[in-house]
C-alpha cells in the first residue's frame, strides 16, 4: 500500500512537472525546465506506469492468479499485451497525438542490445553508446546530444531493468531472443527519450 501511495505521489509530481514544462513554453521563450529535467520527469512517468502494469496486472494475473496468459500475439491468443507492447503502443499514441500540438515535441522508444524484435536494436551512435553505458553503469543515466534529419536533439537513455519474474522468463524463453540468461534486476535494455533543441 505504501509502495502504491509513493508511486501515485511520484506520478502526480511528474504530471505536474510535465504540465509546468508545457505551460512554460506557452508563456515565453525561456523554459523553466531543462531538457534533462523534462526527460527525467517523462521517464519517471513512463517507468512507473509500466512497472504498475507489469507488477499489478501482468505478473499478478499470469504468475500469481494464473487466470490468463500474456502474449505478444495478444489479439490472436486472447491474452494480455506484454508490458513492452503496452509501452510501445503508448509511444505511438503520443507520437500521433502530439503531431497536432505545436508546443509538445518529444519521442521515446524501448530498445535493447539484445532485442527480441531486431527493429528495436540501437540504430544511432547515441543509442548504441547510451545502451552500453546504462548496461555497464547500473543506476546511472546517459545524456547526450545528436543531430538526426537536420534536427538537433537532447537524447537521454535510461536503464530498463527486469522488475518482475515475467520479464525474465519471457525474454529467456523467446525463440528470437539473442540472450537467454537474464536474471531479476538485470539491465535488459533502455528507454531512449528525445527532445528537439535549438541549434
Amino acid at each position: 500500500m505504501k509502495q502504491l501511495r509513493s508511486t501515485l505521489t511520484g506520478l502526480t509530481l511528474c504530471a505536474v512537472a510535465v504540465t509546468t514544462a508545457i505551460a512554460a513554453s506557452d508563456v515565453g521563450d525561456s523554459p523553466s525546465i531543462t531538457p534533462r529535467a523534462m526527460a527525467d520527469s517523462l521517464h519517471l512517468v513512463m517507468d512507473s506506469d509500466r512497472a504498475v502494469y507489469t507488477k499489478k496486472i501482468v505478473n499478478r494475473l499470469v504468475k500469481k492468479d494464473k487466470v490468463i496468459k500474456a502474449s505478444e500475439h495478444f489479439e490472436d491468443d486472447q491474452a494480455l499485451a506484454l508490458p513492452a507492447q503496452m509501452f510501445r503502443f503508448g509511444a505511438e499514441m503520443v507520437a500521433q497525438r502530439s503531431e497536432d500540438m505545436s508546443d509538445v515535441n518529444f519521442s521515446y522508444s524501448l530498445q535493447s542490445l539484445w532485442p527480441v524484435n531486431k527493429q528495436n536494436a540501437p540504430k544511432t551512435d547515441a543509442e548504441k553508446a547510451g545502451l552500453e553505458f546504462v548496461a555497464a553503469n547500473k543506476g546511472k543515466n546517459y545524456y547526450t546530444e545528436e543531430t538526426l534529419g537536420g534536427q538537433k536533439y537532447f537524447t537521454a537513455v535510461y536503464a530498463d531493468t527486469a522488475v518482475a519474474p515475467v520479464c525474465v522468463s519471457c525474454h529467456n524463453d523467446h525463440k528470437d531472443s539473442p540472450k537467454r540468461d537474464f536474471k531479476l534486476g538485470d539491465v535488459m535494455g533502455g528507454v531512449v527519450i528525445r527532445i528537439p533543441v535549438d541549434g
Partner: protein
Amino acid sequence: MGTRTNHTLWAAWLLLTIGLGTALAWLMLTGSDKTLFMPGPLSPGHHQLGDNCGVCHSDALGGGEVLQEACVECHGEDRKKPFDSHPRTKFTDPRNADRLEQINALQCVTCHLEHRPEITRKNGVTLPRDVCFHCHSDIAEDRPSHAGMAFTSCTDAGCHNFHNNRALYTDFLVKHLHEPDLLEPAQLPAREFAAVLEELMDYPADRYPVEPLDADMADAPAGTAVEATLLDDWATTAHARSGVNCSACHLLSRETNAQPLWTDYPDTENCGDCHDLEVKRFQRGKHGMRLAAGLPPMTPGEAQLPMHADATHSQLTCNSCHTPHRYDSRHAAVEACLDCHDDTHSRAYTDSPHHLLWQREQRGELPAGSGVSCASCHMPRIKYDVNDWVSRIMVDHNQSADLSPNSKMIRPACLHCHGLAFSIDALADPDQIERNFRGPPGVHVDSMEMAERDLERAREETDAGEESSSNP
C-alpha cells in the same frame, strides 16, 4: 503595316490567352465536371470516381496535404485494421529520419501515384517491387531463412505486405502447422447483432423495442396502399421478429424533422440508421464507393470486370442484393452476385465443391454456416469494432477489402474451413481461382516449411542454452 499586324496578332494572342486562362480557372474553381484536367486514366481502384475529381482533389488550390487527407479519409481505417506494421508514427520518429530520406513513407502518393497506368501495378502500387530493400537490405542477417530471396518476391503469396505485414507472422504459421486441408468442423461463425443490441447506443431501441411483430401490427400510415405479398414478406423476416416496423425504414428524417415524411422507397441512408457499420463498409468497397462520393450508384455497365449484359443498368444500393421486404440473406449471398458477375471464376461457382456445400446447407442437410456462398469468402464474417469498447461479428460489406492482395482473405474466410497451408497454396494458384477451387491447388508456397525450420532452429538454440547453463 507589318508592325501593326504584329501588334494585332499579339493582342489577339493575349486576349485569347487571358480568355482561355479565365475559362479554365473558372472551370477549375466552380465547375462540376473537371475531367478536362485529368492527367491520365484512373487506376482500377478509383476508376468509378472519374466524374467527381473533388473526391480526392477537394481543394482546387490545395497541395499534397489535400490528397493525403483524401487518401486517409477513405483508406485510413483499413491501415489500422487489423494491424499496420508500418504506421505513420514509425516514420515520424527521429531515429528513422535516415529511412525517411530514402523513402517518404509519410505520404501515400509516394507508393500510390494516381493517373499513371504505365507504372501502376497490382494493388495500386507505383513503386518498383523491390521497394522493401531500402530499409530491409540486411534481412538475411536477422533471418537466415531469407538469404538469397529476391526483394521482388517479398509480397508473393501473402508472406508480406506493407500495411499488414504481420497477417501471416511466423508464430501464426507455426500454430497452424500440419493442419489437414479440410478442418472439422468446417463452419462459419454466426453473425452477431441481436446479441449486442443493448450495447449499440445508436440503435433506436426506444422506438422499436425488440419484440416479435406480425402482419396485423404493421404501422404503415392509414391510406397507404400495401400489397399483401409485401406484408407477408416482411412478416417472415428478422425485421418483423425483432420489432422493426414499417416506419423504421419508411419514415425519413425522424431525428430532425418535426413532420416525418413517408417514403415508398427507403434508401441506403435509411438502412444505415440501424446497420450503420454495414453501410459504412459497403460504401468503402467498389459496390458503394460512388454513393460515398455523392455520385449516382454504381452500375455493372461501369465495371471493369465482365458483367451480364442484361444487368448493365442495374443500380447498386442495399436493395439491389437485399430484396426489399424479404431481405433474404441467402439470395444476397449467391444469386444477387451471379445476376451481375459474369467472369470465369463466378461462372465456375455453381460447379464448385463450395456450391455443393451451399446447396446441402439450404436443403437442411448440413448445419447453418457449413455452406460456402460467394459472400462467405468475399464478404466474410469478421469481428469488427463497433467502437472502442464493443465489437461484433458482422458481414463485411466491403467486398473489395480482402482482394488486395487476395491473401488477406485467408484469415477472415479460408481458415474457418481449411488448414493454413492449403489456404496459402490455393490463393497463390490463379488457375485454381479461375475454376473456383475445384480440385487441389497446383502451386506450393514454402512458408510453412520455413516456419517449421525456424521452430527447429529455436529449439536447438534453447537446448544448447540449457545444456551450457547446466554444465558451466
